[in-house]
């Protein structure tokens, strides 16, 4: 194998596939990156067996040559060293050549590295996925779907299924739900394509986070293929495979209250900043709990009290308060996470009592909701 490649393209691809590579793997060859050179271009693969990423660098793009293939072939190089080398090479052009016995030479300018490679034949095959059932989502929408839900997955392995995001496709609508059982994030999106099929799967939160990091904010579409135990995201020159979580995701539909006893409408940013300030001292205490009280005339009071440090009280003039008077305490962190995930300048918060979940939505937008369980104070 021998090819000459533009360093920035190589670096971008290496950094993308590195997202899947981990040093903690039971399969030693997975600490490496597989490099395959064909007449069409160069393909890099990284995997930790849960996530696999394949990045393709075409021979040329928009009439500019990126790679010059001298001799097709394949090799696996230690990911940690290879990525550091590529990052620090002195010139914009890199030559990679496999000599005998898997010895790989990386040349750039006047520097030359000799790296021991591994046999590419021994690298596990990526899952074979038939692309019969497929639906598409613009990249920027996909990133929003991930950003607005994935933060709410559970970080504890007590209920492994909750470490993933539940993706449901039905009647050309995609619904993403994540919950760690203390808060829940839900986002819906209409799919452009017809006959999208019906799915109900759970994608590990970590996979979606890594996917989101690799994707640029463009409106290019991503094709999504879901099988029984894998999901594949296909972008231009990029394949992202993830294992699905096994087990049934709890039915959250019935857990989201659809009536309310107190409704607040307020400005998102103003409310977020008030909660942030109220949590300033609470954060240092054990719980980071803030309290919200409603008053006549649309006044909301946000406060916190950490006996050993101090207390904060702040009043906000809301757009409106309807229904019963309310005093409720909740985690400032969950509230700030939820508010940051919402788009829109005004939010509506619907409460059904001090010990029941409450729902936050952008005003006049049903495609997204954040649900938070309050904390009980004694």
């Amino acid at each position: 194998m021998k090819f000459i490649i533009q360093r920035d393209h190589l670096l971008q691809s290496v950094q993308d596939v590195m997202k899947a590579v981990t040093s903690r793997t039971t399969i030693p060859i997975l600490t490496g990156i597989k490099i395959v050179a064909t007449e069409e271009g160069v393909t890099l693969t990284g995997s930790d067996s849960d996530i696999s990423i394949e990045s393709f660098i075409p021979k040329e793009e928009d009439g500019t040559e990126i790679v010059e293939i001298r001799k097709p072939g394949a090799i696996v190089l230690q990911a940690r060293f290879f990525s550091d080398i590529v990052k620090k090479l002195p010139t914009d052009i890199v030559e990679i050549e496999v000599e005998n016995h898997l010895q790989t030479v990386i040349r750039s300018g006047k520097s030359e590295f000799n790296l021991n490679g591994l046999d590419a034949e021994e690298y596990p095959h990526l899952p074979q996925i038939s692309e019969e059932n497929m639906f598409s989502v613009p990249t920027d929408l996909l990133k929003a779907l991930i950003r607005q839900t994935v933060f709410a997955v559970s970080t504890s392995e007590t209920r492994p299924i909750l470490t993933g995001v539940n993706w449901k496709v039905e009647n050309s609508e995609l619904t993403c739900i994540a919950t760690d059982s203390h808060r829940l994030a839900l986002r819906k999106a209409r799919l452009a394509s017809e006959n999208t099929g019906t799915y109900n799967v759970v994608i590990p939160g970590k996979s979606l986070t890594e996917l989101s990091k690799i994707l640029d904010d463009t409106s290019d579409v991503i094709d999504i293929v879901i099988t029984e135990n894998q999901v594949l995201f296909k972008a231009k020159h990029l394949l992202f495979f993830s294992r699905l979580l096994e087990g049934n995701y709890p039915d959250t539909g019935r857990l989201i209250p659809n009536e309310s006893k107190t409704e607040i409408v307020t400005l998102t940013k103003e409310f977020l900043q008030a909660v942030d300030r109220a949590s300033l001292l609470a954060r240092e205490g054990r719980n980071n709990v803030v309290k919200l009280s409603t008053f006549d005339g649309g006044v909301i009071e946000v406060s916190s009290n950490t006996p050993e440090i101090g207390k904060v009280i702040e009043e906000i003039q809301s757009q409106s308060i309807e229904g019963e008077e309310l005093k409720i305490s909740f985690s400032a962190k969950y509230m700030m996470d939820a508010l940051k995930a919402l788009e829109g300048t005004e939010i509506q918060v619907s409460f059904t009592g001090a010990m029941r979940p409450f729902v936050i939505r952008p005003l006049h937008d049903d495609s997204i909701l954040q649900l938070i369980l309050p904390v009980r104070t004694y």
Partner: protein
Amino acid sequence: MGSVNMKEMYPKNGHVILHVDMNSFYASVEMAYDPALKGKPLAIAGNPEERRGIIVTCSYEARKFGVKTTMPLWEAKKLCPDLIIMRPNFDRYRTASSVMFDILRQYSELVEPVSIDEGYVDITDSYPYGSPIEIAKSVQERILDQLDLPCSIGVAPNKFLAKMASDMKKPMGITILRKRDVPIVLWPLDAEEMHGVGKKTAEKLNTIGIKTIGELANAEEMQLKALLGINGIRLKERANGNDKRTVDPDSVYDFKSIGNSTTLPRDVSNQRELYEIIGKLAGQVAARMRRKKVVAANIGITIRYKDRKTITRSKKLLNTVRNEKEISVAARELFGKHWNGDSVRLLGVTATDLLVEDSAVKQLDLFSYEEDAKKEPLHNTMSKLREKYGTNIIESAGGYLNQQTKPGNDTSFNKDFLHQKKQRDHLEKKQKD
């Protein structure tokens, strides 16, 4: 200094209480750390990089410019462009605070920390150390010498007056407030100046024509009770210079853990038997926690094997625990994870990160909140009653169970039988009152 003489400087009946209040504590600690900051306007604020941060505390130099606690940073900067802004270093403050309380304890065992930067000392029996004023001066000097921190001290016959007194001269003041001074010193002040009267209460008092502490002291009891509930009567008492609260060194702010352990009659390696013992220990810990009215955020275990090798392991919990079942579940889980299967000689269960019941919270769970929500109407009724008649009027019956259990032969990590006695005395006193 002859102690016989000194005794004459103390009241024959009644108490002498100091209230020690550290002056702009966080800012002063920073100045002690970095003397270059002294004499400069300094503010401690969350998120100094962000415009929306707020002032947590500030130095007296900054106060001269009108900078105040909870003021947004941008506003403070406008008032005082040279303001130095620092992030809080809570570890430093905690260390300074604990040294400060250690100094106070050298004059009397009866030290009650109220918060990180203030506390009461009952020096009624401290005459060997000098007259009350001499002790106050000595405390102030030692805190300044050892920690380079200023404080103000109030000297009075009870907690309320001591607190009011320490507020009168800042920084580095010592103020004596006797009961006979109350009409002259306190009564002309606005009611809002009174400790225990907030903005809301002051507004309410205003509606019945009470503007000063003096007017509150002479207000009609029925009217006060109708307006503020039981708290109204209490405030009137205070306005007259009366406060019966004692200085309680066992107030929760200070104690750190409750643990019970037991040496087994023989070495045991049967898991079921060991689990049973853990359950029993958990029950004892739960009973002691109930007496102190605390909940725990951290549960630990101690295992001593027959070769005397001892391990302790603990776990921070998402939600606080309080009852036998919760503590034993957490302790058994820890045991299951860390027991190596060898014969065990001693077992212990410890609850740490203790919080007063009232300040504890429970994060509700989407899949189980209904259980808590069921109790919501009761919860509401209780908090309404408390608002009307004071905190102690109603408690769940659980608080009164097991108060009579005798301390057994098990080793107690924390000698709380003193506390028990105190509580008994307290109950008896309550009945007499």
